[in-house]
Protein backbone atom coordinates (compact mmCIF):
# COMPACT_ATOMS: atom_id res chain seq x y z
CA UNK A 1 0.00 0.00 0.00
CA UNK A 2 2.62 2.48 1.09
CA UNK A 3 5.34 1.00 -1.02
CA UNK A 4 3.80 1.29 -4.43
CA UNK A 5 5.31 2.99 -7.42
CA UNK A 6 2.10 3.42 -9.41
CA UNK A 7 1.83 6.91 -10.80
CA UNK A 8 5.60 7.42 -10.84
CA UNK A 9 6.21 7.54 -14.55
CA UNK A 10 9.65 7.95 -16.02
CA UNK A 11 9.80 10.01 -19.16
CA UNK A 12 13.57 10.12 -19.60
CA UNK A 13 16.29 7.51 -19.35
CA UNK A 14 18.02 9.81 -16.87
CA UNK A 15 15.03 9.50 -14.54
CA UNK A 16 15.00 5.75 -15.01
CA UNK A 17 18.70 5.39 -14.34
CA UNK A 18 18.86 7.45 -11.16
CA UNK A 19 20.18 5.86 -8.01
CA UNK A 20 16.79 5.30 -6.36
CA UNK A 21 14.13 5.30 -9.07
CA UNK A 22 11.30 4.76 -6.57
CA UNK A 23 10.21 7.79 -4.57
CA UNK A 24 9.65 5.86 -1.32
CA UNK A 25 13.24 4.62 -1.49
CA UNK A 26 14.49 8.17 -1.80
CA UNK A 27 12.52 9.24 1.28
CA UNK A 28 13.71 6.20 3.20
CA UNK A 29 17.37 6.72 2.41
CA UNK A 30 17.05 10.44 3.19
CA UNK A 31 15.56 9.60 6.56
CA UNK A 32 18.23 6.98 7.23
CA UNK A 33 21.02 9.44 6.44
CA UNK A 34 19.42 12.10 8.63
CA UNK A 35 19.24 9.68 11.53
CA UNK A 36 22.80 8.48 10.96
CA UNK A 37 24.31 11.95 10.60
CA UNK A 38 22.23 14.00 13.04
CA UNK A 39 20.25 11.95 15.53
CA UNK A 40 22.81 9.29 16.39
CA UNK A 41 25.75 11.63 17.15
CA UNK A 42 23.45 13.73 19.33
CA UNK A 43 21.88 10.97 21.35
CA UNK A 44 23.99 7.81 21.19
CA UNK A 45 26.18 7.04 24.18
CA UNK A 46 29.89 6.81 23.65
CA UNK A 47 29.72 3.06 24.35
CA UNK A 48 27.30 2.69 21.46
CA UNK A 49 29.51 4.75 19.19
CA UNK A 50 32.89 3.25 19.98
CA UNK A 51 31.91 -0.36 20.63
CA UNK A 52 29.10 -0.81 18.15
CA UNK A 53 28.66 1.74 15.42
CA UNK A 54 32.24 2.57 14.48
CA UNK A 55 33.29 -1.10 14.16
CA UNK A 56 30.06 -1.81 12.28
CA UNK A 57 30.87 0.92 9.76
CA UNK A 58 34.51 -0.13 9.42
CA UNK A 59 33.54 -3.76 8.83
CA UNK A 60 30.81 -2.66 6.43
CA UNK A 61 33.48 -0.90 4.39
CA UNK A 62 35.75 -3.94 4.36
CA UNK A 63 32.76 -6.13 3.45
CA UNK A 64 31.95 -3.74 0.63
CA UNK A 65 35.51 -4.19 -0.61
CA UNK A 66 35.35 -7.98 -0.51
CA UNK A 67 31.88 -7.91 -2.03
CA UNK A 68 33.18 -6.02 -5.05
CA UNK A 69 35.78 -8.72 -5.57
CA UNK A 70 33.80 -11.82 -4.62
CA UNK A 71 30.18 -10.83 -5.11
CA UNK A 72 30.52 -8.77 -8.27
CA UNK A 73 33.69 -9.98 -9.98
CA UNK A 74 33.37 -13.57 -8.73
CA UNK A 75 36.94 -13.91 -7.43
CA UNK A 76 37.10 -15.65 -4.07
CA UNK A 77 39.62 -14.10 -1.68
CA UNK A 78 40.77 -14.94 1.83
CA UNK A 79 43.27 -12.09 2.04
CA UNK A 80 40.92 -9.34 3.16
CA UNK A 81 42.51 -8.84 6.59
CA UNK A 82 45.97 -8.70 5.04
CA UNK A 83 44.89 -5.89 2.72
CA UNK A 84 43.39 -4.10 5.72
CA UNK A 85 46.73 -4.47 7.51
CA UNK A 86 48.53 -2.97 4.53
CA UNK A 87 46.15 0.01 4.55
CA UNK A 88 46.57 0.58 8.29
CA UNK A 89 50.36 0.30 8.33
CA UNK A 90 50.78 2.34 5.16
CA UNK A 91 48.56 5.16 6.45
CA UNK A 92 50.51 5.09 9.73
CA UNK A 93 53.81 5.35 7.91
CA UNK A 94 52.67 8.15 5.62
CA UNK A 95 51.59 10.09 8.72
CA UNK A 96 54.80 9.26 10.55
CA UNK A 97 57.37 9.90 7.87
CA UNK A 98 56.00 12.80 5.88
CA UNK A 99 55.60 15.87 8.07
CA UNK A 100 52.41 17.83 7.60
CA UNK A 101 50.73 15.02 5.73
CA UNK A 102 46.95 15.53 5.80
CA UNK A 103 45.34 12.51 7.42
CA UNK A 104 42.76 12.01 4.68
CA UNK A 105 45.52 11.89 2.09
CA UNK A 106 47.24 9.28 4.26
CA UNK A 107 44.06 7.21 4.27
CA UNK A 108 43.81 7.46 0.48
CA UNK A 109 47.50 6.62 0.02
CA UNK A 110 47.06 3.72 2.45
CA UNK A 111 44.22 2.50 0.29
CA UNK A 112 46.28 2.91 -2.87
CA UNK A 113 49.16 0.97 -1.33
CA UNK A 114 46.75 -1.82 -0.49
CA UNK A 115 45.46 -1.63 -4.07
CA UNK A 116 48.98 -2.19 -5.44
CA UNK A 117 49.52 -5.16 -3.14
CA UNK A 118 46.07 -6.41 -4.12
CA UNK A 119 46.99 -6.30 -7.79
CA UNK A 120 50.16 -8.29 -7.07
CA UNK A 121 48.24 -10.99 -5.20
CA UNK A 122 45.48 -10.86 -7.81
CA UNK A 123 47.83 -11.99 -10.56
CA UNK A 124 47.21 -15.72 -9.86
CA UNK A 125 43.51 -15.11 -10.63
CA UNK A 126 44.44 -14.87 -14.29
CA UNK A 127 45.20 -18.58 -14.28
CA UNK A 128 43.18 -20.11 -11.47
CA UNK A 129 39.62 -19.88 -10.30
CA UNK A 130 37.34 -20.58 -7.37
CA UNK A 131 38.66 -22.43 -4.34
CA UNK A 132 42.15 -22.64 -5.83
CA UNK A 133 42.27 -18.89 -6.06
CA UNK A 134 41.13 -18.64 -2.45
CA UNK A 135 44.12 -20.77 -1.49
CA UNK A 136 46.40 -18.51 -3.51
CA UNK A 137 45.10 -15.43 -1.70
CA UNK A 138 45.85 -17.23 1.56
CA UNK A 139 49.46 -16.57 0.66
CA UNK A 140 48.78 -12.86 1.12
CA UNK A 141 47.06 -13.59 4.41
CA UNK A 142 50.06 -15.42 5.84
CA UNK A 143 52.83 -13.46 4.19
CA UNK A 144 51.81 -9.86 4.86
CA UNK A 145 51.26 -9.96 8.66
CA UNK A 146 54.48 -11.98 8.98
CA UNK A 147 56.37 -9.38 6.93
CA UNK A 148 54.93 -6.51 8.97
CA UNK A 149 56.13 -8.13 12.20
CA UNK A 150 59.48 -9.22 10.76
CA UNK A 151 60.50 -5.87 9.30
CA UNK A 152 60.29 -3.52 12.24
CA UNK A 153 60.69 -0.45 10.02
CA UNK A 154 56.98 -0.71 9.22
CA UNK A 155 56.02 -0.22 12.86
CA UNK A 156 58.76 2.32 13.59
CA UNK A 157 60.69 -0.35 15.55
CA UNK A 158 57.98 -0.99 18.11
CA UNK A 159 57.71 -4.30 19.93
CA UNK A 160 55.89 -7.09 18.03
CA UNK A 161 54.95 -4.66 15.28
CA UNK A 162 52.33 -2.75 17.22
CA UNK A 163 51.46 0.57 15.63
CA UNK A 164 49.86 3.35 17.60
CA UNK A 165 47.79 5.47 15.29
CA UNK A 166 48.35 9.21 15.32
CA UNK A 167 45.47 11.44 16.44
CA UNK A 168 43.12 12.45 13.65
CA UNK A 169 43.12 16.12 12.81
CA UNK A 170 41.69 17.70 9.69
CA UNK A 171 42.34 21.40 9.01
CA UNK A 172 43.00 22.04 12.67
CA UNK A 173 39.84 20.28 13.79
CA UNK A 174 40.56 17.34 16.07
CA UNK A 175 38.45 14.22 15.68
CA UNK A 176 39.11 13.06 19.21
CA UNK A 177 35.70 12.33 20.75
CA UNK A 178 33.55 9.31 19.84
CA UNK A 179 30.82 11.35 18.04
CA UNK A 180 33.42 13.13 15.94
CA UNK A 181 35.22 9.92 15.04
CA UNK A 182 31.88 8.34 14.25
CA UNK A 183 30.95 11.21 11.93
CA UNK A 184 34.27 11.00 10.12
CA UNK A 185 33.97 7.25 9.62
CA UNK A 186 30.33 7.59 8.59
CA UNK A 187 31.15 10.24 6.00
CA UNK A 188 33.97 8.20 4.47
CA UNK A 189 31.89 5.01 4.44
CA UNK A 190 28.85 6.76 2.96
CA UNK A 191 30.90 8.34 0.18
CA UNK A 192 32.69 5.10 -0.63
CA UNK A 193 29.43 3.15 -0.61
CA UNK A 194 28.02 5.66 -3.08
CA UNK A 195 31.10 5.29 -5.25
CA UNK A 196 30.79 1.50 -5.12
CA UNK A 197 27.14 1.69 -6.14
CA UNK A 198 28.06 3.96 -9.02
CA UNK A 199 30.82 1.65 -10.20
CA UNK A 200 28.62 -1.43 -10.18
CA UNK A 201 25.98 0.30 -12.29
CA UNK A 202 28.52 1.58 -14.82
CA UNK A 203 30.53 -0.23 -17.43
CA UNK A 204 33.23 -1.50 -15.05
CA UNK A 205 30.58 -3.07 -12.81
CA UNK A 206 28.94 -4.74 -15.79
CA UNK A 207 32.34 -6.00 -16.89
CA UNK A 208 32.92 -7.48 -13.40
CA UNK A 209 29.59 -9.26 -13.43
CA UNK A 210 30.14 -10.43 -17.00
CA UNK A 211 33.46 -12.01 -16.00
CA UNK A 212 31.75 -13.57 -12.99
CA UNK A 213 28.79 -15.00 -14.92
CA UNK A 214 30.38 -16.19 -18.19
CA UNK A 215 33.98 -15.33 -18.85
CA UNK A 216 34.20 -16.76 -22.39
CA UNK A 217 31.24 -14.67 -23.53
CA UNK A 218 32.70 -11.63 -21.81
CA UNK A 219 35.94 -12.05 -23.70
CA UNK A 220 34.12 -12.46 -27.01
CA UNK A 221 32.29 -9.16 -26.61
CA UNK A 222 35.57 -7.38 -26.07
CA UNK A 223 36.02 -7.26 -22.31
CA UNK A 224 39.65 -7.66 -21.31
CA UNK A 225 39.45 -10.37 -18.69
CA UNK A 226 42.86 -9.74 -17.17
CA UNK A 227 42.36 -6.00 -16.85
CA UNK A 228 38.87 -6.43 -15.43
CA UNK A 229 39.98 -8.89 -12.77
CA UNK A 230 42.97 -6.79 -11.76
CA UNK A 231 40.82 -3.66 -11.48
CA UNK A 232 38.48 -5.65 -9.25
CA UNK A 233 41.42 -6.66 -7.06
CA UNK A 234 42.69 -3.08 -6.98
CA UNK A 235 39.35 -1.47 -6.12
CA UNK A 236 38.55 -4.17 -3.59
CA UNK A 237 41.92 -3.83 -1.88
CA UNK A 238 41.58 -0.06 -1.90
CA UNK A 239 38.33 -0.38 0.05
CA UNK A 240 39.88 -2.92 2.42
CA UNK A 241 42.95 -0.70 2.85
CA UNK A 242 40.89 2.34 3.80
CA UNK A 243 38.82 0.13 6.11
CA UNK A 244 42.06 -1.06 7.73
CA UNK A 245 43.25 2.50 8.20
CA UNK A 246 39.96 3.45 9.84
CA UNK A 247 40.13 0.27 11.95
CA UNK A 248 43.47 1.45 13.32
CA UNK A 249 42.91 5.22 13.46
CA UNK A 250 39.26 5.56 14.39
CA UNK A 251 38.37 2.31 16.12
CA UNK A 252 41.20 0.66 18.04
CA UNK A 253 43.88 3.34 18.17
CA UNK A 254 46.68 0.83 18.26
CA UNK A 255 46.84 -2.43 16.36
CA UNK A 256 49.32 -5.20 15.79
CA UNK A 257 49.69 -7.03 12.49
CA UNK A 258 48.64 -10.30 14.14
CA UNK A 259 45.24 -8.73 14.74
CA UNK A 260 44.69 -8.85 10.99
CA UNK A 261 44.59 -12.63 10.94
CA UNK A 262 42.76 -15.25 8.95
CA UNK A 263 39.96 -15.17 11.50
CA UNK A 264 39.19 -11.58 10.52
CA UNK A 265 39.28 -12.48 6.82
CA UNK A 266 36.76 -15.25 7.46
CA UNK A 267 34.52 -12.94 9.46
CA UNK A 268 34.40 -10.53 6.55
CA UNK A 269 33.75 -13.34 4.08
CA UNK A 270 30.84 -14.48 6.29
CA UNK A 271 29.50 -10.94 6.26
CA UNK A 272 29.49 -11.06 2.47
CA UNK A 273 27.77 -14.45 2.39
CA UNK A 274 25.14 -13.63 5.02
CA UNK A 275 24.51 -10.13 3.72
CA UNK A 276 24.33 -11.20 0.11
CA UNK A 277 27.07 -11.54 -2.47
CA UNK A 278 26.73 -8.96 -5.21
CA UNK A 279 24.79 -6.40 -3.22
CA UNK A 280 25.88 -3.07 -1.76
CA UNK A 281 23.06 -3.08 0.76
CA UNK A 282 23.94 -6.66 1.63
CA UNK A 283 27.41 -5.57 2.73
CA UNK A 284 25.86 -3.36 5.38
CA UNK A 285 23.30 -5.95 6.42
CA UNK A 286 25.97 -8.65 6.70
CA UNK A 287 28.28 -6.43 8.72
CA UNK A 288 25.40 -5.49 11.02
CA UNK A 289 24.42 -9.13 11.44
CA UNK A 290 27.88 -10.34 12.39
CA UNK A 291 29.06 -7.39 14.49
CA UNK A 292 25.87 -6.17 16.16
CA UNK A 293 23.75 -9.28 16.62
CA UNK A 294 26.06 -11.08 19.12
CA UNK A 295 26.15 -8.01 21.33
CA UNK A 296 22.42 -7.54 21.03
CA UNK A 297 21.85 -11.21 21.89
CA UNK A 298 24.19 -10.94 24.84
CA UNK A 299 22.28 -8.00 26.25
CA UNK A 300 18.97 -9.69 25.56
CA UNK A 301 19.97 -12.94 27.27
CA UNK A 302 21.52 -11.25 30.30
CA UNK A 303 18.59 -8.92 30.76
CA UNK A 304 16.15 -11.72 30.07
CA UNK A 305 17.75 -13.96 32.67
CA UNK A 306 17.73 -11.14 35.18
CA UNK A 307 14.11 -10.30 34.48
CA UNK A 308 13.03 -13.90 34.95
CA UNK A 309 15.06 -14.16 38.15
CA UNK A 310 17.03 -17.07 36.76
CA UNK A 311 20.23 -17.77 38.58
CA UNK A 312 22.34 -18.93 35.69
CA UNK A 313 25.89 -20.07 36.23
CA UNK A 314 28.44 -17.55 35.05
CA UNK A 315 29.38 -17.91 31.42
CA UNK A 316 26.06 -19.50 30.64
CA UNK A 317 24.65 -16.49 28.83
CA UNK A 318 27.73 -15.97 26.72
CA UNK A 319 27.64 -19.60 25.64
CA UNK A 320 23.92 -19.42 25.01
CA UNK A 321 24.61 -16.36 22.90
CA UNK A 322 27.02 -18.34 20.71
CA UNK A 323 24.47 -21.13 20.31
CA UNK A 324 21.66 -18.77 19.36
CA UNK A 325 23.93 -16.83 17.02
CA UNK A 326 25.05 -20.00 15.25
CA UNK A 327 21.47 -21.20 14.96
CA UNK A 328 20.42 -17.85 13.47
CA UNK A 329 23.16 -18.02 10.84
CA UNK A 330 21.98 -21.47 9.80
CA UNK A 331 18.35 -20.33 9.87
CA UNK A 332 18.98 -17.37 7.59
CA UNK A 333 21.10 -19.36 5.18
CA UNK A 334 18.32 -21.97 4.87
CA UNK A 335 15.61 -19.36 4.45
CA UNK A 336 17.58 -17.45 1.86
CA UNK A 337 20.94 -18.75 0.67
CA UNK A 338 21.40 -15.56 -1.33
CA UNK A 339 21.62 -13.48 1.80
CA UNK A 340 19.75 -10.85 3.72
CA UNK A 341 19.75 -8.46 0.77
CA UNK A 342 17.65 -10.95 -1.21
CA UNK A 343 15.25 -11.28 1.73
CA UNK A 344 14.86 -7.53 1.70
CA UNK A 345 14.23 -7.60 -2.05
CA UNK A 346 11.54 -10.27 -1.65
CA UNK A 347 9.98 -8.25 1.15
CA UNK A 348 9.88 -5.20 -1.13
CA UNK A 349 8.14 -7.21 -3.85
CA UNK A 350 5.57 -8.38 -1.30
CA UNK A 351 5.13 -4.86 0.03
CA UNK A 352 4.19 -3.58 -3.41
CA UNK A 353 1.03 -5.66 -3.27
CA UNK A 354 0.29 -5.54 0.43
CA UNK A 355 -2.42 -5.65 1.79
CA UNK A 356 -4.12 -6.93 -1.35
CA UNK A 357 -3.34 -10.41 -2.64
CA UNK A 358 -2.98 -9.36 -6.30
Amino acid at each position, binding site marked *: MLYRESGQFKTT*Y*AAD*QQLFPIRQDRYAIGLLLAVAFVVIPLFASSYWLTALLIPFLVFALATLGLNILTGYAGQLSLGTAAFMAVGAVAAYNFQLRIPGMPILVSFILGGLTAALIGIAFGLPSLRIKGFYLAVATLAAQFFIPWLLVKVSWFSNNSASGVITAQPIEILGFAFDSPPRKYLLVLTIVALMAL*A*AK*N*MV*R*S*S*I*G*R*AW*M*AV*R*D*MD*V*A*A*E*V*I*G*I*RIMRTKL*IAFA*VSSFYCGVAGALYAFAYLGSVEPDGFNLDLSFRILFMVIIGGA*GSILGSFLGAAFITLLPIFLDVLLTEGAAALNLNLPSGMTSMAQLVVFGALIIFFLIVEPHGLARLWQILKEKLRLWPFPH
Partner: protein
Amino acid sequence: MTSGPHPSPPPSVMGEGVHSPARRIGDTMLSVDNISLAFGGVKALTDISFDVREHEIRAIIGPNGAGKSSMLNCINGVYTPQQGRIRFDGQTFTSMDPHKAATMGIARTFQNIALFKGMSVLDNLMTGRNLKMRANLLAQAFYVGPNRREELEQREKVEQIIDFLQIESVRKVPVGRLPYGVQKRVELGRALAAEPRLLLLDEPMAGMNIEEKQDMCRFVLDVNDEFGTTIVLIEHDMGVVMDISDRVVVLDYGKKIGDGTPDEVRSNQAVIDAYLGVAH
Protein backbone atom coordinates in the same frame (compact mmCIF):
# COMPACT_ATOMS: atom_id res chain seq x y z
CA MET B 1 15.60 0.31 -45.86
CA THR B 2 18.28 -0.68 -48.27
CA SER B 3 20.80 1.97 -49.04
CA GLY B 4 23.29 0.05 -51.14
CA PRO B 5 24.41 0.89 -54.64
CA HIS B 6 21.57 -1.15 -56.13
CA PRO B 7 18.03 0.16 -56.20
CA SER B 8 15.87 -1.78 -53.81
CA PRO B 9 14.24 -4.74 -55.51
CA PRO B 10 10.53 -4.76 -56.16
CA PRO B 11 8.58 -6.35 -53.33
CA SER B 12 8.69 -10.05 -54.00
CA VAL B 13 5.77 -12.32 -53.49
CA MET B 14 6.40 -14.64 -50.54
CA GLY B 15 7.28 -18.04 -51.87
CA GLU B 16 9.96 -17.34 -54.42
CA GLY B 17 12.71 -17.16 -51.82
CA VAL B 18 12.41 -14.98 -48.76
CA HIS B 19 14.58 -12.27 -50.23
CA SER B 20 16.06 -11.74 -53.64
CA PRO B 21 19.73 -12.66 -53.78
CA ALA B 22 20.47 -9.73 -56.07
CA ARG B 23 20.36 -7.52 -52.98
CA ARG B 24 23.59 -5.86 -52.01
CA ILE B 25 26.03 -8.68 -51.74
CA GLY B 26 29.43 -7.11 -51.93
CA ASP B 27 33.03 -8.23 -52.06
CA THR B 28 34.65 -10.87 -49.92
CA MET B 29 34.77 -9.70 -46.33
CA LEU B 30 36.09 -12.75 -44.55
CA SER B 31 38.06 -15.58 -45.99
CA VAL B 32 39.34 -18.60 -44.18
CA ASP B 33 42.27 -20.26 -45.92
CA ASN B 34 43.36 -23.83 -45.24
CA ILE B 35 42.43 -23.83 -41.58
CA SER B 36 43.42 -26.93 -39.63
CA LEU B 37 42.70 -27.39 -35.95
CA ALA B 38 43.45 -30.41 -33.80
CA PHE B 39 42.95 -31.15 -30.13
CA GLY B 40 45.75 -33.59 -29.41
CA GLY B 41 45.11 -36.42 -31.82
CA VAL B 42 41.56 -35.36 -32.64
CA LYS B 43 41.38 -33.47 -35.89
CA ALA B 44 38.53 -31.02 -35.51
CA LEU B 45 39.13 -29.20 -38.78
CA THR B 46 41.24 -30.23 -41.74
CA ASP B 47 42.25 -27.77 -44.41
CA ILE B 48 39.04 -25.76 -44.50
CA SER B 49 38.72 -22.82 -46.87
CA PHE B 50 35.72 -20.69 -47.65
CA ASP B 51 34.79 -17.07 -47.93
CA VAL B 52 32.02 -14.81 -46.79
CA ARG B 53 30.91 -11.83 -48.82
CA GLU B 54 29.68 -8.58 -47.43
CA HIS B 55 25.96 -8.50 -46.55
CA GLU B 56 25.36 -12.15 -47.25
CA ILE B 57 23.89 -14.83 -45.03
CA ARG B 58 26.29 -17.75 -45.05
CA ALA B 59 25.25 -21.01 -43.42
CA ILE B 60 27.56 -23.69 -42.09
CA ILE B 61 25.89 -27.08 -41.86
CA GLY B 62 26.99 -30.58 -41.13
CA PRO B 63 26.23 -33.56 -38.90
CA ASN B 64 27.03 -33.42 -35.18
CA GLY B 65 30.73 -33.21 -34.48
CA ALA B 66 31.52 -31.96 -37.97
CA GLY B 67 33.51 -29.02 -36.58
CA LYS B 68 31.03 -26.23 -37.18
CA SER B 69 31.35 -24.58 -33.78
CA SER B 70 35.12 -25.04 -33.87
CA MET B 71 35.11 -23.12 -37.13
CA LEU B 72 33.30 -20.18 -35.52
CA ASN B 73 35.65 -20.37 -32.56
CA CYS B 74 38.61 -20.03 -34.92
CA ILE B 75 37.06 -17.06 -36.69
CA ASN B 76 36.64 -15.04 -33.53
CA GLY B 77 39.77 -16.20 -31.80
CA VAL B 78 38.49 -18.47 -29.05
CA TYR B 79 40.55 -21.27 -30.61
CA THR B 80 43.86 -20.87 -32.38
CA PRO B 81 44.17 -23.04 -35.47
CA GLN B 82 47.48 -24.86 -36.00
CA GLN B 83 47.52 -24.03 -39.68
CA GLY B 84 45.93 -21.59 -42.04
CA ARG B 85 45.06 -17.96 -42.18
CA ILE B 86 42.02 -15.84 -41.64
CA ARG B 87 41.59 -12.72 -43.72
CA PHE B 88 39.12 -10.20 -42.44
CA ASP B 89 38.67 -6.75 -43.85
CA GLY B 90 41.93 -6.80 -45.78
CA GLN B 91 44.03 -7.90 -42.80
CA THR B 92 45.52 -11.36 -42.49
CA PHE B 93 45.77 -13.23 -39.23
CA THR B 94 47.26 -16.60 -38.42
CA SER B 95 45.36 -16.35 -35.17
CA MET B 96 42.73 -13.97 -33.91
CA ASP B 97 42.26 -13.06 -30.32
CA PRO B 98 38.73 -12.53 -29.09
CA HIS B 99 39.30 -8.94 -28.09
CA LYS B 100 40.73 -8.00 -31.46
CA ALA B 101 37.87 -9.78 -33.20
CA ALA B 102 35.42 -7.77 -31.12
CA THR B 103 37.09 -4.47 -31.91
CA MET B 104 37.08 -5.34 -35.61
CA GLY B 105 33.33 -5.81 -35.49
CA ILE B 106 32.84 -9.55 -35.11
CA ALA B 107 30.11 -10.55 -32.66
CA ARG B 108 28.65 -13.94 -31.91
CA THR B 109 26.13 -15.98 -30.04
CA PHE B 110 26.72 -19.39 -28.51
CA GLN B 111 25.14 -22.78 -28.99
CA ASN B 112 24.43 -23.14 -25.28
CA ILE B 113 23.21 -19.75 -24.20
CA ALA B 114 26.10 -17.79 -22.71
CA LEU B 115 24.28 -14.86 -21.17
CA PHE B 116 25.28 -13.16 -17.94
CA LYS B 117 22.62 -14.85 -15.84
CA GLY B 118 22.68 -12.60 -12.81
CA MET B 119 22.26 -9.42 -14.83
CA SER B 120 19.11 -7.88 -16.26
CA VAL B 121 18.34 -7.92 -19.98
CA LEU B 122 19.21 -4.24 -20.10
CA ASP B 123 22.58 -4.79 -18.42
CA ASN B 124 23.38 -7.70 -20.71
CA LEU B 125 22.80 -5.52 -23.75
CA MET B 126 24.68 -2.60 -22.20
CA THR B 127 27.61 -4.95 -21.61
CA GLY B 128 27.48 -5.75 -25.30
CA ARG B 129 28.34 -2.12 -25.92
CA ASN B 130 31.29 -2.05 -23.52
CA LEU B 131 33.74 -1.26 -26.30
CA LYS B 132 31.91 2.02 -26.95
CA MET B 133 32.36 3.15 -23.35
CA ARG B 134 35.32 5.35 -22.61
CA ALA B 135 34.76 6.96 -19.18
CA ASN B 136 37.53 6.29 -16.68
CA LEU B 137 37.14 4.59 -13.33
CA LEU B 138 36.91 7.81 -11.31
CA ALA B 139 34.21 9.27 -13.54
CA GLN B 140 32.35 5.99 -13.10
CA ALA B 141 32.77 6.02 -9.32
CA PHE B 142 31.29 9.50 -9.05
CA TYR B 143 28.86 8.97 -11.93
CA VAL B 144 29.68 12.39 -13.30
CA GLY B 145 30.27 14.09 -16.63
CA PRO B 146 31.43 11.73 -19.33
CA ASN B 147 30.17 8.63 -17.56
CA ARG B 148 26.62 9.89 -16.99
CA ARG B 149 26.45 11.18 -20.58
CA GLU B 150 27.80 7.92 -21.95
CA GLU B 151 25.40 5.77 -19.93
CA LEU B 152 22.44 7.74 -21.28
CA GLU B 153 23.65 7.69 -24.89
CA GLN B 154 24.31 3.97 -24.82
CA ARG B 155 21.02 3.32 -23.07
CA GLU B 156 19.23 4.99 -25.97
CA LYS B 157 21.01 2.77 -28.48
CA VAL B 158 20.29 -0.31 -26.42
CA GLU B 159 16.63 0.61 -26.20
CA GLN B 160 16.47 0.66 -30.00
CA ILE B 161 17.66 -2.93 -30.04
CA ILE B 162 15.22 -3.86 -27.28
CA ASP B 163 12.49 -2.33 -29.45
CA PHE B 164 13.70 -4.19 -32.51
CA LEU B 165 13.66 -7.54 -30.75
CA GLN B 166 10.38 -6.79 -28.95
CA ILE B 167 11.67 -7.56 -25.47
CA GLU B 168 10.56 -4.29 -23.84
CA SER B 169 8.48 -5.99 -21.19
CA VAL B 170 11.41 -7.94 -19.74
CA ARG B 171 14.13 -5.33 -19.93
CA LYS B 172 14.67 -5.22 -16.16
CA VAL B 173 14.28 -8.95 -15.52
CA PRO B 174 17.42 -10.97 -14.69
CA VAL B 175 17.97 -13.17 -17.75
CA GLY B 176 18.22 -16.31 -15.63
CA ARG B 177 14.47 -16.05 -15.00
CA LEU B 178 13.47 -15.80 -18.68
CA PRO B 179 12.21 -18.69 -20.81
CA TYR B 180 14.62 -20.30 -23.23
CA GLY B 181 13.30 -18.73 -26.42
CA VAL B 182 13.51 -15.24 -24.98
CA GLN B 183 17.03 -15.89 -23.70
CA LYS B 184 18.08 -16.81 -27.23
CA ARG B 185 16.62 -13.52 -28.39
CA VAL B 186 18.43 -11.58 -25.67
CA GLU B 187 21.69 -13.21 -26.68
CA LEU B 188 21.11 -12.06 -30.25
CA GLY B 189 20.44 -8.63 -28.78
CA ARG B 190 23.69 -8.61 -26.87
CA ALA B 191 25.59 -9.45 -30.04
CA LEU B 192 23.70 -6.77 -31.97
CA ALA B 193 24.41 -4.20 -29.28
CA ALA B 194 28.03 -4.14 -30.43
CA GLU B 195 26.84 -3.02 -33.89
CA PRO B 196 28.85 -5.79 -35.53
CA ARG B 197 29.77 -5.98 -39.18
CA LEU B 198 29.96 -9.75 -39.01
CA LEU B 199 27.60 -11.73 -36.84
CA LEU B 200 28.35 -15.36 -36.03
CA LEU B 201 25.26 -17.25 -34.89
CA ASP B 202 25.77 -20.71 -33.43
CA GLU B 203 22.47 -22.57 -33.73
CA PRO B 204 20.20 -19.61 -33.05
CA MET B 205 17.09 -21.75 -33.46
CA ALA B 206 18.12 -24.88 -31.59
CA GLY B 207 15.39 -26.22 -29.32
CA MET B 208 12.73 -23.81 -30.50
CA ASN B 209 9.20 -24.54 -31.58
CA ILE B 210 8.00 -23.55 -35.03
CA GLU B 211 6.66 -20.12 -34.02
CA GLU B 212 9.84 -19.22 -32.19
CA LYS B 213 11.86 -20.35 -35.19
CA GLN B 214 9.81 -18.18 -37.49
CA ASP B 215 10.32 -15.19 -35.21
CA MET B 216 14.04 -15.83 -35.03
CA CYS B 217 14.30 -16.19 -38.83
CA ARG B 218 12.50 -12.90 -39.21
CA PHE B 219 14.94 -11.23 -36.83
CA VAL B 220 17.96 -12.69 -38.62
CA LEU B 221 16.65 -11.53 -41.99
CA ASP B 222 15.77 -8.10 -40.62
CA VAL B 223 19.22 -7.69 -39.10
CA ASN B 224 20.70 -8.57 -42.45
CA ASP B 225 18.35 -6.26 -44.33
CA GLU B 226 18.10 -3.25 -42.06
CA PHE B 227 21.57 -3.10 -40.57
CA GLY B 228 23.38 -4.67 -43.53
CA THR B 229 25.10 -7.07 -41.14
CA THR B 230 26.89 -10.02 -42.67
CA ILE B 231 25.79 -13.23 -41.00
CA VAL B 232 27.44 -16.62 -40.64
CA LEU B 233 25.10 -19.10 -39.07
CA ILE B 234 25.19 -22.69 -37.99
CA GLU B 235 21.85 -24.41 -38.11
CA HIS B 236 20.47 -27.92 -38.17
CA ASP B 237 17.00 -27.12 -39.47
CA MET B 238 17.44 -27.63 -43.22
CA GLY B 239 14.22 -25.81 -44.01
CA VAL B 240 15.55 -22.72 -42.31
CA VAL B 241 18.99 -23.01 -43.87
CA MET B 242 17.68 -23.45 -47.39
CA ASP B 243 15.20 -20.59 -46.98
CA ILE B 244 17.30 -17.84 -45.52
CA SER B 245 20.90 -18.40 -46.54
CA ASP B 246 22.59 -17.15 -49.67
CA ARG B 247 25.36 -19.73 -49.68
CA VAL B 248 26.04 -22.82 -47.63
CA VAL B 249 29.24 -24.57 -46.51
CA VAL B 250 28.93 -28.23 -45.59
CA LEU B 251 31.38 -29.83 -43.16
CA ASP B 252 31.69 -33.47 -42.23
CA TYR B 253 34.32 -34.93 -39.90
CA GLY B 254 36.24 -31.66 -40.06
CA LYS B 255 36.43 -31.60 -43.84
CA LYS B 256 34.62 -29.42 -46.28
CA ILE B 257 32.41 -31.54 -48.49
CA GLY B 258 30.26 -28.94 -50.15
CA ASP B 259 29.98 -25.23 -50.81
CA GLY B 260 27.50 -23.28 -52.86
CA THR B 261 23.98 -22.00 -53.09
CA PRO B 262 21.29 -23.94 -51.23
CA ASP B 263 20.17 -25.58 -54.47
CA GLU B 264 23.68 -26.69 -55.38
CA VAL B 265 24.29 -28.08 -51.93
CA ARG B 266 20.96 -29.88 -51.90
CA SER B 267 21.86 -31.80 -55.01
CA ASN B 268 25.49 -32.48 -54.03
CA GLN B 269 25.99 -36.26 -53.74
CA ALA B 270 28.66 -36.01 -51.02
CA VAL B 271 26.30 -33.96 -48.87
CA ILE B 272 23.46 -36.39 -49.34
CA ASP B 273 25.77 -39.25 -48.40
CA ALA B 274 26.97 -37.47 -45.29
CA TYR B 275 23.45 -36.86 -44.07
CA LEU B 276 21.81 -40.10 -45.13
CA GLY B 277 24.79 -42.42 -44.94
CA VAL B 278 26.03 -44.72 -47.69
CA ALA B 279 26.25 -48.48 -47.94
CA HIS B 280 29.80 -49.75 -47.67
